């Protein structure tokens, strides 16, 4: 009886000391305990005289009732101990005993449940960890920090969800529940991870927490960059629709791409917390495929983020279905005719981008077809060369904004100038001409690079519905053969735009990246420095810590930033320290030694200050026949910790021009040293 009374007394004492805040009101519980300072708080509410003590074996003891109340446990006391129920689990504590029964299992606490100053106390770590909390320690303040999530609401989940529905966190489990309707022939059995497959359409949906405050603009730019920067796979595609705005009341962006074998589209919805992304690809067989991807519209229209998750699927199935696909390939895109002359023939037809590629045999003698030269550049970024056969490329575009033919041609001229070093490029003025009986515009661009010449004749024609661009490219030496130009111009004169047979299916990708170079695609940071990558420039190798490569998505310009240390250990194990100047000089020397005849110092080592740090710059060129062809500029600047950075700027002289120099300078200028 005496025990019971003291227990009651203790209970009353504890109740008076209980903080207002507990799990009942918050999802998250943080308890600070400092036995040395005799302080304790529960979710920032201090506990009055918490009666903390450390036992002789170093166990921190806390009031049982304060912990039980903080977690919102049900408690029952008897004269033999206490029974606590939390999250459906019963824990039986026995007074003056270290033995505890949790559910049906036995445990031994490091100290017994005991009265201290009339307060029932329990080992802190054992009790809180048994209630599912995490126990941490702040060595600076001496605080023991208990953190716990409210697990009373959490229930078991079916792990098979993983196999069937992939991201549980993202589907039906997070606060952001979402749903959408799918076509009836959507085969749920093939829902693997976040990918759907239904016949030929593959469809991926993701939702991710927007922890890095990504803006719609960044997503919009990133998808474009992704689609245009995936090398060969997507480079022959056209981003035929680009949208950024709102849809269903949410910020929304959409990019659609098509190429000769596939159509792909990405739709993004943004909420305050989440990024929802839908990506679909359909292999291209015929135009019905293209139309069937419109099913995405149905799916997107059914998109809801407030879905209550009442059924396990979280994905609604309705009766929409795909259209039956045509059996055979039908080309409905032709809107022109041309009659090949001489040896001209159709090489490739990029059906869906409406581009024909034609070529004819070269008239240049075999011996000048330097196979070494071809091999050398085959895998590289080879300059346009007469050693390749003459070609004619015919492309068709719509004109939704009624752009004038002059403005269109001017864009093309600008793009040409932007792509090549003006030193080697000559571009004529835009001139009137005719193709057959149709009035057209024309310009000529010539490249003369180290004796390798090529000519581009570009013709622009607009028939009121469609725009046509004919690009004829050849080595001027071809013109020495009288038949070549005769046949070619005769053929061009047979060009006839014809009636359009199908509905409008797209617009030319206007590559607007250059105008947006100042836009920040993403800000890359590490411990040492950060810089801004211009729009449609890609960054690779980042986070490997020592090497960053920045390159233009479509172009041939790039720069590298690498990181190294000034000290080194030689073979005998001696630590060697160098100055930055020594390191730079050795760099030049080793390059010279490696290739004494082919390397030339274009700009000698020069010291200067880079962003307030000691730095050196030099330029090394490669020479052939006494002429410098390509150069590499190095900027080495000091880090903080006996380390240094090197910015390497290779300049392939053919592609070097003010635009690329300017963009690279922008990247260098944007570097912020930490």
């Amino acid at each position: 009886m005496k025990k019971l009374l003291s227990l009651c007394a203790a209970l009353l004492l504890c109740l008076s000391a209980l903080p207002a805040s507990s799990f009942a009101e918050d999802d998250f519980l943080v308890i600070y305990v400092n036995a040395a300072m005799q302080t304790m708080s529960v979710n920032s509410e201090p506990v009055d005289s918490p009666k903390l003590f450390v036992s002789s074996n170093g166990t921190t003891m806390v009031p049982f009732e304060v912990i039980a109340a903080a977690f919102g446990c049900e408690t029952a006391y008897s004269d033999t101990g206490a029974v606590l129920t939390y999250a459906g689990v019963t824990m039986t504590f026995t007074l003056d005993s270290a033995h505890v029964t949790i559910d049906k299992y036995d445990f031994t606490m490091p100290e017994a449940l005991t009265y201290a100053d009339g307060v029932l106390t329990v080992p802190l770590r054992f009790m809180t960890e048994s209630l599912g909390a995490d126990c941490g320690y702040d060595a600076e303040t001496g605080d023991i920090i208990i953190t716990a999530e409210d697990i009373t609401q959490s229930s078991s989940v079916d792990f098979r969800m993983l196999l069937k529905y992939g991201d549980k966190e993202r589907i039906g489990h997070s606060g952001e529940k979402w749903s959408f309707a799918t076509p009836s022939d959507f085969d749920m059995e093939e829902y693997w991870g976040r990918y759907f497959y239904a016949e030929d359409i593959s469809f991926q949906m993701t939702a991710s927490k927007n922890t890095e405050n990504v803006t719609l603009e960044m997503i919009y730019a990133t998808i474009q960059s992704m689609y245009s920067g995936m090398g060969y796979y997507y480079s022959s595609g056209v981003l035929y629709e680009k949208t950024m705005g709102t849809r269903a009341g949410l910020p929304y962006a959409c990019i659609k791409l098509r190429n000769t074998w596939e159509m792909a589209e990405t739709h993004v919805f943004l909420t305050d917390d989440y990024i929802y992304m839908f990506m679909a690809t359909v292999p291209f067989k015929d135009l019905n495929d293209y139309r069937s991807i419109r099913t995405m519209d149905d799916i997107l229209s059914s998109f809801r983020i407030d879905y209550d998750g009442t059924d396990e699927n979280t994905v609604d199935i309705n009766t929409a279905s795909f259209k039956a696909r045509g059996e055979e390939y039908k080309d409905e895109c032709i809107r022109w005719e041309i009659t090949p002359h001489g040896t001209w023939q159709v090489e490739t037809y990029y059906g869906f981008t409406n581009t024909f590629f034609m070529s004819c045999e070269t008239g240049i003698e075999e011996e000048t077809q330097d196979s070494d030269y071809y091999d050398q550049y085959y895998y590289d970024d080879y300059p346009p060369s007469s050693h390749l056969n003459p070609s004619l490329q015919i492309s068709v575009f719509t004109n939704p904004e009624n752009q004038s033919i002059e403005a269109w041609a001017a864009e093309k001229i600008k793009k040409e100038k932007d792509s090549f070093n003006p030193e080697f490029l000559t571009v004529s003025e835009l001139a009137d001409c005719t193709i057959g009986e149709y009035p057209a515009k024309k310009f000529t661009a010539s490249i003369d690079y180290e004796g390798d010449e090529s000519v581009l004749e570009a013709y622009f024609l607009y028939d009121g519905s469609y725009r046509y661009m004919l690009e004829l490219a050849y080595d001027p030496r071809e013109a020495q053969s009288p038949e070549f130009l005769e046949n070619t111009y005769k053929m061009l004169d047979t060009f006839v735009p014809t009636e359009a047979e199908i509905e409008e299916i797209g617009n030319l990708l206007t590559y607007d990246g250059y105008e947006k170079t100042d836009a920040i695609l993403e800000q890359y940071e590490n411990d040492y420095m950060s810089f801004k990558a211009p729009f449609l420039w890609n960054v690779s190798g980042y986070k490997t810590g020592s090497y960053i490569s920045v390159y233009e998505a479509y172009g041939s310009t790039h720069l590298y930033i690498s990181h190294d240390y000034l000290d080194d250990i030689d073979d005998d194990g001696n630590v060697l320290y160098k100055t930055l100047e020594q390191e730079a000089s050795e760099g030049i020397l080793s390059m010279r030694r490696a290739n004494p005849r082919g390397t030339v110092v274009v700009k000698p080592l020069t010291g200067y200050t880079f962003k307030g740090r000691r730095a050196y710059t030099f330029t090394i060129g490669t020479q052939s026949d006494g002429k410098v062809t390509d150069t590499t500029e190095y900027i080495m600047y000091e880090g903080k910790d006996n380390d240094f950075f090197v910015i390497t700027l290779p300049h392939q002289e053919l592609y070097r021009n003010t635009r690329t120099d300017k963009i690279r300078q922008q990247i260098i200028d944007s570097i912020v040293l930490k």
Partner: protein
Amino acid sequence: MKKKLLVCAVILAVFSFDLSGASFSPKVMVNGSIIPTDALLIDDRTYVPLRGVFEAAGAQVSWDEESGTAVINTGSAQQDTLVPGVIEKLSPSVVGIIGKCVSGSGASAYEYIAHGSGVVVKSGGEILTNAHVVTDMIMIFVVLNDGSSYEAKVKHIDEESDLALIKINKIGLPVAKFADTSDIVVGKMVVAIGTPISFSLRNSATVGYISGINRAVSGTYRLIQTDAAVNSGNSGGPLVNLDGEVIGINSSGYVGYGIESTNFAIPADTVNYVLRHFEAYGKVRRPSLKAELKEDWLAELGVPSEGGLTVRSMDKDSPLLYAEFANGDIISAINGTAVNSIVEVNELFKSFLPGDTVTVTAARGADIIEKQVVLAEGN
């Protein structure tokens, strides 16, 4: 002769009785169950029927009439009766771990499902597993013995020891008991419990023996070698002795040419070391010499060696450099304990924290030098 056999029976059978009772019949408990015997207490000795006790203990008993010998055979019977008990005892503490992993990056990234095993170490939802089981998992589910599953978060991970602690929002879990390190001896029968190969075989068990200890294969610490089959899905599950105590955490089998049925487990003392550090510091605080030490070629081959460790190079903040050791010095002992392999150093360092001072003994040419070294913080 009869008396001797009886003494044996007394030793092997677990019994309890009260000496205060005069005409008292002692009870006999074998492997946790009271067996019906008419045991007698005579002159402070307990006499029990030989066949009854031994058969209850799982042995086969026969009588050789010619030689007048009682033959007791415990071999196969032990496995048949004890192992199921061990599995039943520990299974509630063994969990399956299944998760989604992503391999590759960018457009070539693909997802796959991987699985392993784990052991409950805290009633409040903490589960121990191999680091390599959960390292690449982007979503982790823990499947309990009763089939229920919970999403798990990685709490701590230590790739050096290949151990990780994950946590689920479930309390009231049974905790596995770890064996005394001295109880880990070669030849002991062990059971590996886990989820091998296919996840549908959740909580399956394989039986084998401890075939070696202190085997340093490629790990940072010593490992237990066993012939109990440890498959990829067993990884992170417990290696258990016949008392149902965890002696180690299975790590996936060492695969090499010509090596069969050789598997490894991280011993309980390494597990305790890592768990203790997780609890105290949130990570394993490893002392380091910040130097590259080269083992004698024998040690490299895993053969016992007395060649010491040669200092190959030192970081600029190496405590050996501060203590004026030089490259080429051959370290023979730390705090008086001979060290001949990296694993031995790591094992020794388990008793120290960064900042602690140790005495390092090394040979430099014909000289023996001894210096105090303040251990640095490892990575």
